[in-house]
């Protein structure tokens, strides 16, 4: 019974997603909301403003530098967490 309910909810969810996806703007539409907000400024002024011809680098490291700082801290936190966990495990085993 529970399993059947699970399948049913899965099908309903898939139907909902497919229905919603019909409203998405077509790929590459220049008038879609994401393409009309900040993208034109990045495309037109990224090299002039940041000196980076690679637009991805300009957005990643300059316009969205704070975001990348967060990503670096996430990677750093992963390393420190692994260090604390496994280092502690080794010390615990030795006792």
């Amino acid at each position, binding site marked *: 019974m529970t399993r059947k309910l699970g399948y049913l909810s899965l099908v309903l969810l898939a139907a909902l997603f497919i229905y919603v996806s019909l409203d998405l703007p077509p790929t590459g539409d220049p008038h879609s909301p994401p393409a009309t907000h900040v993208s034109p400024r990045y495309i037109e002024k990224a090299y002039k403003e940041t000196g980076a011809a*690679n637009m991805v*680098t300009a957005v990643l*490291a300059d316009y969205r530098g*704070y975001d990348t700082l967060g990503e670096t*801290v996430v*990677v750093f936190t992963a*390393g420190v967490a692994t260090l604390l966990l496994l280092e502690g495990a080794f010390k615990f085993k030795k006792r």
Partner: protein
Amino acid sequence: MNKSRPTTILDTCVRLIIPFYLVYAIYVLVHGHYSPGGGFQAGVVLAVSVILVQLVQDPNPRWGLGRDAAVVFACLGTFMYAGIGLLTMAWGGNMLDYGVLPLGEVEAEVRALGTLGIEIGVTMAVMGVFVVIFNLLRGEE
């Protein structure tokens, strides 16, 4: 881990290939302004070169990067990124607004230099973290 010496073929191949890894990592780092690449990718390539040495040589290679040095690199890289952000604030701009740094006349060039600075920080952080994780998962000998 077996304590035996690496075979001559493996050792020689690693010694030959490591310089190319290092040069390629630096290329990916400094050419990130003009081509795909940047700090994260360069850090991974650097970490791979260190891990390769540790895999082929003894568990404690005479050259390469140990665990403690890797931790220092990870901390320094993250601190360098945040430090550049604080520097820009000290010069009166917003955080990570590189244009205010006194490095040159043209603002775009100064911003490119600031971007390069934080990419170096990201490279050091990613390399240190990857080497630390590999070291830990390899276990104590």
